[in-house]
């Protein structure tokens, strides 16, 4: 068993990030959620502190640390009250470029990564499509060879931060599904300029996290040079899979961070709010849901950091990463629900922030993969049941 608590260096990382977060209080996040203004100041500070490069290799200006440390960074962000507005604003910089790190050429790494770490390039990640959903191998966006590269056409949906991005990591079919050896082959991954003359991005009005928008992309003859292709043509799905486990772990710890601040705020409120001549927190009816939420959050957190430790040690972590994402998202959401309820009417008021956490906590239950697909995975891969989809 590896350690159950943070090392001193990891603690220093947590404190470093916490100091950044101290400059962005509840007021700031409440405001971004009201106005929908992207939290640029926060992202600029995270970039200036070098935090965006936590998991990027040292050779390109990153810190060369692992998923464990990246998880500490992201959990600290979410747990500060920034919730998914803060976490999602930088989430993609942290592990999104992993396919480039692992499968890009040296020239691609040198050209792309330092700019992402510095926050100069802002990327978005275009996988999900309106007509294929979770069935990624059925995606319809096509990339056709031209003399000097590829021409991409298709539609994507839910692409986070596409309004702000100047780069897009996009997966498209280079060989039609019917002609590919396997359905998961014939897909290719490109890292290209977000060319607004060829891509129209339309924001999707949504439940929460207003400041970090999601979009429908209409891609019409997007020309990308040959060196935008990451790794080999046709292997994009495989590259994508490599990044999925870390992303699940990050979603888990982010959701857990949100749950933690939600119950901390509820406990504080329950100590202060006096009804029937006693603080409401003196009632077990208020205490127990919060205590239960704590227990669930911390159990989920152990699973998440176990998955991170396995990943960092180069071991198989698919089951743990999936389970962590499931447990973390559920525990985070339930903690937010318990917090809203403990606040009574005030839980529904924006002023107390917990309704914002509650709305944002829903994200982790849906994206980047649904609960059902996680359970499908565990049933099939861990329990050996027949594949159901």
């Amino acid at each position: 068993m590896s350690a159950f608590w943070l090392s001193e260096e990891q603690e220093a990382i947590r404190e470093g990030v916490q100091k950044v977060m101290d400059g962005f209080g509840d007021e700031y996040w409440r405001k971004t959620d009201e106005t929908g203004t992207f939290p640029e100041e926060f992202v600029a500070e995270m970039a200036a502190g070098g935090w965006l490069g936590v998991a990027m290799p040292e050779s390109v200006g990153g810190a060369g640390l692992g998923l464990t440390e990246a998880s500490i960074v992201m959990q600290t962000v979410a747990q500060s009250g920034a919730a998914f507005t803060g976490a999602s604003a930088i989430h993609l910089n942290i592990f999104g470029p992993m396919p480039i790190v692992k499968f890009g050429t040296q020239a691609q790494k040198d050209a792309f990564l330092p700019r992402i770490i510095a926050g100069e390039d802002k990327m978005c990640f275009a996988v999900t499509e309106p007509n294929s959903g979770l069935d990624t191998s059925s995606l319809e966006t096509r990339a056709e060879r031209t003399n000097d590269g590829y021409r991409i056409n298709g539609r994507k949906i839910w692409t986070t931060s596409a309004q702000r991005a100047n780069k897009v990591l996009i997966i498209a079919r280079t060989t039609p599904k019917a002609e590919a050896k396997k359905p998961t082959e014939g897909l290719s991954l490109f890292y290209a300029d977000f060319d607004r003359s060829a891509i129209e991005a339309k924001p999707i009005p949504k439940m929460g996290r207003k400041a970090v928008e999601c979009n429908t992309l209409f891609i019409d003859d997007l020309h990308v040079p040959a060196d935008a292709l990451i790794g080999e043509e046709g292997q994009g799905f495989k590259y994508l899979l490599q990044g999925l486990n870390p992303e699940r772990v990050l979603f888990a710890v982010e959701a857990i961070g949100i749950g933690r601040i939600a119950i901390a705020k509820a406990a504080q409120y329950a100590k202060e709010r006096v009804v029937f001549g006693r603080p409401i927190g003196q009632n077990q009816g208020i205490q127990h849901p919060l205590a239960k939420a704590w227990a669930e959050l911390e159990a989920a957190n152990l699973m998440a950091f176990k998955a991170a430790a396995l990943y960092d040690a180069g071991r198989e972590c698919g089951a743990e990463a999936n389970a962590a994402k499931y447990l973390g998202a559920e525990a985070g959401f339930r903690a937010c629900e318990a917090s809203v309820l403990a606040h009574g009417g005030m839980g529904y008021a924006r002023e107390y922030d917990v309704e914002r956490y509650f709305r944002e906590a829903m994200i982790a239950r849906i994206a980047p993969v649904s609960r059902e697909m996680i359970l499908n995975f565990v049933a099939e891969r861990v329990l050996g049941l027949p594949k159901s989809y």
Partner: protein
Amino acid sequence: MKVLVPVKRVIDYNVKVRVKPDQTGVDLANVKMSMNPFDEIATEEAVRLKEKGVATEVVVVSIGPQQAQETIRTALAMGADRGILIVTDQDAEPLAVAKLLKAVIAEESPNLVVMGKQAIDGDNNAVGQMLAALLDWPQATFASKLEVTADKATVTREIDGGLQTLDVSLPAVITADLRLNEPRYASLPNIMKAKKKEIAMKTAADYGVDVSPKLKVLKVTEPPKRSAGIKVADAAELVGKLKSEGVL
């Protein structure tokens, strides 16, 4: 110019301190420890001197338990160059600390010592003054502004009723007050760099200094609990209360 910054590991300023049931001291078990905030300010000032090109090397020294290495690493991550840890298991008294620092200074020959005006654990406010006396160096305490040239430091001090500006010739001891600067937080690249910086491990015996306690703590007690205030309805009632309490 070499600058020496002594730093102490203390209970984090956010922690609510609890007295041990037997009243021999405060409970340190499972309590978050951090660098003394005034020492952070001193470190920041030294690092700024280096960034301005006035200082060439910033050396941090701590006297404390093994874990004080962490505190030194924090200073290294802020930009100090190397550290010295003198390991002691007991909380050394101000005079012992001053003697140890004097011995370190004899080896290191810094041109300037910048240190916190006091540590927030014992609040003694003594080491800087004692050190200056032992070294027979000029001292400028409670600095709220510091300018350093090759052979002198101009220090603005916070004193009762205003500010005082002093020139002290170097070498000198300066102690930092709260308003001297706002310490930076370490960036990730600097945390990584700090891991590779050197910390020399020493003991008090290496410097021939006796750190056995000369003071005896009789009893430690919690400060009296503040009783809850009262609410007044309006200004008239407030004035009435202030009068009846003899404040006005």
